């Protein structure tokens, strides 16, 4: 354990989602002084709105091996450092038609290749464990998927970062970045609690604004190759299953049902937008969720709608993509000194909540290199405080 704020260097993190929370926690554990700002409530962007799947990596095993390997590694670590946060019931990939069966062997091979434990079940066995499954199920494979409450998991990162000296400031919006002589040296902040504005200085600014990261980058006169790609999700009343139920085929619309508390969440669709603040919930997408979800669990068809919403994934890749499906779910850091000649500014984007710790490690490694700080990452073995500590353990 290193004492909080051992180093004088001050890092300003922009964005209070999974990525920002992970980076704040990682840097605080390395003894770096950290301030994190978020324009709204923590996890009010994409991070709070995903369907609550802690990925085993099965979803990406065929087609996006890099993401699959990241997911199995990081989900295993998260279960260890955030005990008590997950519905650890596993997940099933189920084939419900002959076409799905063609995906079975490639799927099993790809899971083995990515190191994802995969156990084949007979249809009868699968139906005993999940009685609401489509009775036409032809094959099922069990993988270590789990359900997570996105906000409460991420609050554990914020709580622990705060305990280690990080300043976490929600309702604090970055209006502009301060750039002098080709160097980002701070930000102009608007405090939504008071309506006041003020400047904060920083030795390094980390852009962790997810699908908004291009807007933040533009304040430094640079851009990041990131495409906001929304999807519609549908929450049904009633818990129809305990395991995460995935369709055994290439990623498509409405091919997953994630149980969460007393709800069942069906997801998702995929398209691309320019402005992540302007997300619609097209009714035909909701209908599609009902139609496709009920192929996995027929009872979904008549389950009452609790909510339908959209969330924008921040996918790494050039704009002009078709649906976003073809873009990898992996993550990437950008040192804008290397890419644009702007010092004091890095961006971390892409990825997903499941890989938030690994993303943070990559980003904090870069930040420390740039600040000349030689401290190892300690997040793999540091058990996080409970989510309530974010509120109750204020220093």
């Amino acid at each position: 354990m290193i004492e909080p704020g051992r180093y004088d260097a001050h890092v300003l993190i922009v964005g209070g989602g999974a990525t920002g929370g992970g980076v704040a926690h990682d840097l605080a554990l390395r003894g770096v002084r950290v301030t994190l700002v978020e324009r709204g409530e923590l996890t009010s962007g994409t991070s709070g709105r995903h369907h609550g799947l802690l990925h085993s990596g099965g979803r990406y095993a065929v087609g996006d091996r890099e993401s699959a390997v990241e997911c199995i590694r990081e989900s295993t670590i998260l279960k260890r450092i955030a005990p008590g946060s997950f519905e650890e019931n596993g997940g099933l990939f189920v084939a419900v038609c002959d076409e799905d069966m063609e995906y079975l062997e490639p799927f099993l091979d790809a899971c083995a290749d990515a190191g994802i434990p995969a156990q084949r079940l007979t249809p009868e066995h699968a139906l005993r464990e999940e009685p609401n499954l489509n009775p036409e199920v032809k094959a099922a494979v069990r993988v270590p998927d789990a359900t997570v409450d996105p906000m409460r998991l991420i609050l554990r990162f914020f709580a622990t970062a705060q305990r280690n000296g990080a300043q976490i400031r929600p309702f604090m919006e970055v209006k502009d970045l301060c750039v002098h002589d080709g160097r980002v040296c701070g930000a102009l902040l608007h405090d939504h609690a008071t309506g006041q504005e003020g400047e904060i200085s920083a030795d390094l600014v980390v852009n962790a604004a997810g699908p908004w990261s291009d807007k933040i980058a533009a304040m430094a006169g640079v851009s990041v190759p990131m495409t906001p790609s929304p999807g519609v999700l549908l929450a049904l009343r009633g818990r129809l299953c305990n395991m995460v139920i995935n369709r055994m085929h290439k990623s498509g619309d409405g091919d997953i049902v994630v149980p969460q508390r007393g709800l069942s969440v069906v997801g998702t669709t995929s398209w691309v937008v320019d402005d992540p603040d302007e997300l619609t919930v097209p009714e035909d997408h909701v209908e599609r969720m009902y139609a496709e979800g009920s192929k996995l669990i027929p009872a979904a068809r008549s389950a009452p709608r609790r909510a339908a919403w959209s969330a924008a994934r921040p996918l790494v890749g050039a704009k002009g993509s078709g649906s976003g499906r073809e873009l990898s779910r992996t993550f990437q850091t950008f040192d804008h000194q290397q890419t644009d000649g702007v010092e004091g500014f890095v961006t971390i984007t892409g990825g997903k909540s499941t890989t938030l710790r690994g993303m943070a490690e990559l980003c904090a490694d870069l930040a420390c290199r740039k600040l000349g700080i030689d401290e190892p990452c300690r997040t793999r073995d540091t058990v996080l405080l409970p989510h309530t500590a974010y509120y109750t353990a204020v220093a």
Partner: protein
Amino acid sequence: MSDPSTADNRQDVSKIETRSLRVYRYKRGDGGEHFDEFEVPVGPHTTVLDALRWIQHHRDPSLALRHSCHHASCGTCGVQVDGSEELACVCQIHDHGDRITVEPLANLPIITDLVVDMTSFFARFPHEHPIIRASGLPANAEPPEDLEQYVRLEDCIECGLCLSACPTAATAHEYVGPAALASAQRLLEEPRGVQREDVLAWASQPEGLWRCHVGLECTRACPTDAIPAERIMALRRELTFGGHHETKEHQR
């Protein structure tokens, strides 16, 4: 799927249905509280949260509110809508009139606008209160051999709606309130390593369960069927009859 924005937004502006939202406003050091009124376009499924976010993005970016999951699972977006506690994300505009008043939750300090400080809410809970419980649903599901049982997240989403609706909490500020007591009762139901005596001692503190006036407003406000009022009554039975409860039943 295809880009939905094209079909959706190609409507004649004059035909778009609207509602008027009266929204509570407060900025620290800014001369007190007031209401601002906004005309908001609505569709068949528009929620109060959708309407508030439309105001943020099209009329007044300084409006502050809390939200996260958008499907009644995180408990972040609690507000009062026309005086009733609601999760804004599942509160349908069409269930309300032409002029809708939105205020922050009661019985919690206001930070700004619709944002309340949840610190005192979480400080009320028993020290240990696990959020993962036995699932039990669907009833006929047989867990895999390597699992002792299927588990799921607790029903209570710690949204604070019950505390806001509680008439006792409105006058007795130290009262621990319905959510915390319901959480204690869950620990008796499913201890998960917590000592029963500790839970009972905590619940029977002076600001604990005997303060409840049985107004039942908490269960009415609860968005996730966590039934706080029933759990408070169950706690009282437990403290009154204790382990002898069943024996008395048998004697009748």
